[in-house]
């Protein structure tokens, strides 16, 4: 079959298009990171060449570390992302288990109700969310962000996880029941370990939008104490409009953690998407 469909020109053509697009996709990222290691003269004189001995300069990074409280913002982002992720995975898996394992009245309705949030963005409720947070005194706390992001992540998590939990063998669970295990033990000790790959997929899907979100930090927690790294970078970039060294260094610092995480988890993420988790 391969001889019938594949010919050399066609393969070369496919590679040419894919390489072109790969260059388009990576060029801006490489350009920014590359130029962040250059002096001002190097950035403007030869933007497309990698830093040489003559143009190498870390002035941008020293400015960033001297000015912005980036480490603190980074910590805030980490706390918000990890805590939201934990609650999304725990609550999401519990609800998915209830929906896929037990037959009770209103099961389908409950599933539809919880799936509503996949399509309707939580952002549209912002006006009332802010009022709620003001009323409960949670404005400018990381708790507010964690609660909102947990609600935001749950619908998709429940949807994906319940698809996977339906595949867990019934014999296994019933064997557990005969051995006298409680429903809670069956969930935590038998089912959860089996859906671990699905949990990893959900984790990546949940994590990226939370880490990158600008809207809710801007509205719910803009104080110096609670700024996330995305909001911090945004304000920092606004302040240093003319300091190109500092801007490029700040951008590189914002890109690198995400990029490293992505390289580590990309296999998991791509397998998650292509295995049909989101179909």
């Amino acid at each position, binding site marked *: 079959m391969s001889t019938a469909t594949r010919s050399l020109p066609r393969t070369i053509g496919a590679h040419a298009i894919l390489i072109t697009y790969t260059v388009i996709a990576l060029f801006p990222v490489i350009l920014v990171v590359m130029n962040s290691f250059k002096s001002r003269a190097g950035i403007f004189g030869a933007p497309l060449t990698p830093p040489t001995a003559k143009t190498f300069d870390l002035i941008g990074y020293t400015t960033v570390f001297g000015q912005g409280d980036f480490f603190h913002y980074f910590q805030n982002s980490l706390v918000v992302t990890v805590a939201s992720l934990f609650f999304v995975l725990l609550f999401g898996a519990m609800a998915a288990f209830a929906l896929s394992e037990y037959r009770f009245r209103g099961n389908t309705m409950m599933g539809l109700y919880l799936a509503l949030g996949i399509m309707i963005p939580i952002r549209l409720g912002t006006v009332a969310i802010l009022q709620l947070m003001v009323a409960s005194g949670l404005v400018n706390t990381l708790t507010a962000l964690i609660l909102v992001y947990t609600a935001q992540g749950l619908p998709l998590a429940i949807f994906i996880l319940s698809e996977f939990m339906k595949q867990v063998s019934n014999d296994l669970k019933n064997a557990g029941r005969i051995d006298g295990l409680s*429903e809670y033990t069956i969930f935590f000790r038998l089912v959860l370990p089996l859906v671990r790959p699905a949990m990893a997929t959900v984790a990546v899907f949940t994590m990226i939008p939370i880490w990158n979100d600008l809207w809710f930090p801007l509205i719910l927690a803009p104080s110096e104490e609670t700024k996330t790294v995305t909001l911090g970078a945004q304000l920092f970039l606004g302040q240093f409009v003319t300091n190109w060294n500092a801007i490029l260094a700040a951008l590189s610092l914002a890109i690198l953690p995400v990029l490293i995480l992505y390289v580590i988890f990309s296999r998991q993420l791509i397998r998650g998407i292509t295995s049909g988790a989101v179909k």
Partner: protein
Amino acid sequence: MDTETMAAETRAKRPIRWHVGVFLAPAVLVYTAFMILPLFGTLQLSLFRNIEQTQVFVGLGNFRTLFGDPNWSVNFWNALRNNVWFFIIHMLVQNPIGILLAALLSSPKLRFTAFYRTAIFVPTILSFVIVGFAWKLILSPIWGVAPHLMDFVGLKSFFTPWLGKEQYALTALSLVSVWQFVGIPMMLIYAALLSIPDEVIEAAECDGVTGMAQFWKIKLPLILPSIGIISILTFVGNFNAFDLIYTAQGALAGPNYSTDILGTFLYRAFFGFQLQVGDPNMGAAIATIMFLIILAGVCVYLFLVQTRLRRYQF
């Protein structure tokens, strides 16, 4: 023992299964409290207006202001028009490119596909702040990267500071957004193409349908449901967009509101900006309109597209 008494016995043994409630409660509570109730709260707020420090019910008054009062309606219709254009560019550029890349990636025996996949998906994981700023720098006439690159292909005379010109800024930003999100349609279509059974492809080959004809006649009809999904995802994402415009052009969505979309308009109405005072009720009214637009899109997708496309599925 007949089945009826057995069923009755089990029912008697387990009158209420508390664990079902325990498993469901946390998710349902958080989801209801921070998503569903605020959503309805916002819809409700859009029917009120703050007059002398008290909330007064005004029915559809806020919407009348939004559509008819020149102070609001000019900006609203402008934002809506821009948003539609933003969506059209995504549908015409992002999704076809995504489908093309997926079709190439899924061709059998092509090497390095894992690398291409990973690399092309990189922009999608970056935050809007990075994307917006990086492109702002690249397109900036001060740095000169864009004119320099265009010089290579002899197009230097076509360069203008796109983000600074009213007639180009929105299209330029839409294309930046396309650059960022092309990975999503690519991945979903790629997954759909991989799931087409080999027998179907082999049968097509036996009938002499190969290459481009095979893609158009066999594969494309089979991936139509996935194309439906990426269309509705694009629709929801575009009519809810905010971050990229805000990062690249600020809340005023310059130059002269030419890049203003519903998200940035909502932000300005809700919080106020510069001389304009924030108005939660008008903000809620705009959010309601966005809700209705997205709901209409989802309904069209669910009732029309989904039912018509289902017959192609296996």
